[in-house]
């Protein structure tokens, strides 16, 4: 059991975030989650904030809560993200702004505020969820892939800026997971994507917690600035 350790996960009302928040609460972490909608997770060591990850004031309130209640933050997992498939010529500018706002700006905000707490305690683990769309240059996902590419690039630079504080920063390149994020994607598109993988199958939620367990471990202090892709990509 990981008593007295604190983990913050974004986008926890459903999908990967919902799974990880229950998983780490079950391991004894103090879990703080946030999303734009309510969470149905009702365990004592889970605290939920109704927050848009791009709302700077609300995001800062989460970190004030963490400082006052727990005085530390061990792990941040930036999971919140949105996707949109479209040909570039048919992509509205609003869609571009929204995707970058959630996938990049939101992630940036949480990293910045988490760094402030973690640097003082000289320990921290930050994991940013990216996508294999970055490496596979998937057609129809130009904007999504570009936003996740920004996440990977930011992760690498941040890992250098925070290295002297005992904070590691890594990203995970997700392959398709059966969540709402891909609900609207046609089956043939998903199958075509799976075909590009070395291991042609969906990522299971357990695969994700297996990797996050590894990256947040105290023994993983020498692993930073890495982007780890699933599926052999």
């Amino acid at each position, binding site marked *: 059991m990981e008593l007295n350790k604190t983990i913050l996960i974004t986008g926890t009302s459903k999908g990967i975030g919902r799974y990880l928040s229950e998983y780490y609460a079950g391991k004894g972490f103090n879990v703080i989650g946030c999303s734009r909608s309510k969470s149905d997770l009702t365990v004592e060591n889970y605290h939920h904030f109704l927050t848009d990850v791009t709302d700077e*004031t609300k995001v*800062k309130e989460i970190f*004030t809560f963490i*400082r*006052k209640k727990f005085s530390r933050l061990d792990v941040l997992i930036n999971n919140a993200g949105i996707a949109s498939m479209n040909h570039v010529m048919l992509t509205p500018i609003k869609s571009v702004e929204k995707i970058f706002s959630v996938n990049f700006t939101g992630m940036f905000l949480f990293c910045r505020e988490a760094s*402030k707490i973690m*640097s003082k305690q000289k320990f921290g683990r930050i994991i940013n969820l990216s996508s294999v769309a970055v490496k596979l240059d998937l057609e129809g996902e130009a904007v999504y892939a570009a936003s996740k590419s920004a996440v990977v690039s930011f992760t690498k630079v941040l890992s250098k800026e925070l290295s*002297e504080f005992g904070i590691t920063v890594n990203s995970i390149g997700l392959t398709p997971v059966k969540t709402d994020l891909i609900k609207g994607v046609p089956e043939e598109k998903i199958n075509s994507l799976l075909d590009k993988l070395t291991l042609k199958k969906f990522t299971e939620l357990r695969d994700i917690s297996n990797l996050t367990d590894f990256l947040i471990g105290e023994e993983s202090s020498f692993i930073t600035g890495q982007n780890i892709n699933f599926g052999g990509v």
Partner: protein
Amino acid sequence: MKISADQIREIIYESINEINSFFNKDKQLGIKEETVLYGQDSRLDSLGLVNLIVEVEQRLTDKLNLNIDLTDEKALSQNQSPFLTVKSLCDYIYNHQNQQTPE
């Protein structure tokens, strides 16, 4: 409620004390208004200044419920940097909150 300059100065002094705890005696900052925080005459390197600013911001929020971004465009576009000395930083925060909170 308006926050006094004394309260702000006290927050800055507390933050300096916190930062000093990581430094050797010859690198420590003085607890006085004239202490230089930024520039050639400062004992702080760039990362030390970053740590001090973060410390001050967090204490302003936690102790005085004052949310202020000390490195926003307004701060960076001042004719004279707010980070030159303890006094200039104190003055900047005091004036900033007066603009935020109508009397």
